């Protein structure tokens, strides 16, 4: 498993694939901003990071949502996807998402898991 998920970075450090799933909105848990921060740091350290917002986690991805920590995540070296099913449940159109967020199916997570990505849920 490890041999598939690791590659060697420019300076000899190991780089990994990560998928972080955020299921809570930033207004229901103070931990959410910490989770955004973890994703940013992993990306900064050279990891290949996908941040997948799901369930109420998609609420922060709306254009009008006031969430500085999420906006900082969008400016980081992290791919941010919003679960298309969760968006439909909440009546959020793809056009209403912040720049830097793309709608995506849950298959994206499955593909990453199958490829050996390290996964974290919050």
């Amino acid at each position, binding site marked *: 498993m490890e041999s598939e998920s690791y590659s060697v970075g420019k300076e000899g450090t190991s780089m990994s694939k990560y998928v972080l799933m955020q299921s809570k909105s930033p207004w229901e848990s103070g931990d959410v901003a910490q989770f955004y921060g973890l994703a940013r740091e992993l990306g900064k350290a050279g990891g290949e990071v996908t941040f997948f917002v*799901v369930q109420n986690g998609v609420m922060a991805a709306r254009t009008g949502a006031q969430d500085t920590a999420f906006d900082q995540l969008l400016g980081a070296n992290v791919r941010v996807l919003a679960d298309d099913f969760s968006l439909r449940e909440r009546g959020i159109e793809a056009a209403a998402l912040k720049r830097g967020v793309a709608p995506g199916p*849950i298959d994206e997570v*499955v593909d990453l*898991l*199958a490829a050996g990505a390290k*996964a974290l849920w919050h």
Partner: protein
Amino acid sequence: MATITIGIMDPPYESANTPTAFRMVDAALRKGHAVNVFCYEGATALGFAGQKQHPNAVHGASIEEEDHPNPKEWIKALLAFAAQRQVKLVWCNCGMCVDERGVEDQVPGVCRGSPVDAWKYCEGSDGVLLIGTE
């Protein structure tokens, strides 16, 4: 094809985490990946065979009209789908968690194990996701 292990902890009827987990299992099976599901704590009641549909008196709906979905039916459907696709799906409950809750009567196909089995599933998997309650 890969092997994926998903750990679930939430009890039925309480969290959106449960349908999300089921959606991931479904998506993985559709792609032909083998899947291990390990249910811990309250999640061991997901496959409890004693779950019953109910009418909705507030809305005046009968049992049939309400058609309330029970998670045991989703598990049965996923197991049937895996069998149809000839893809391995293991649905394992923590035995001690089952005993604590008195939910020994599970739908066919759900097995009983221990955290040791969960560890083995993880060791043999390409990817692991634990969906915690908090």
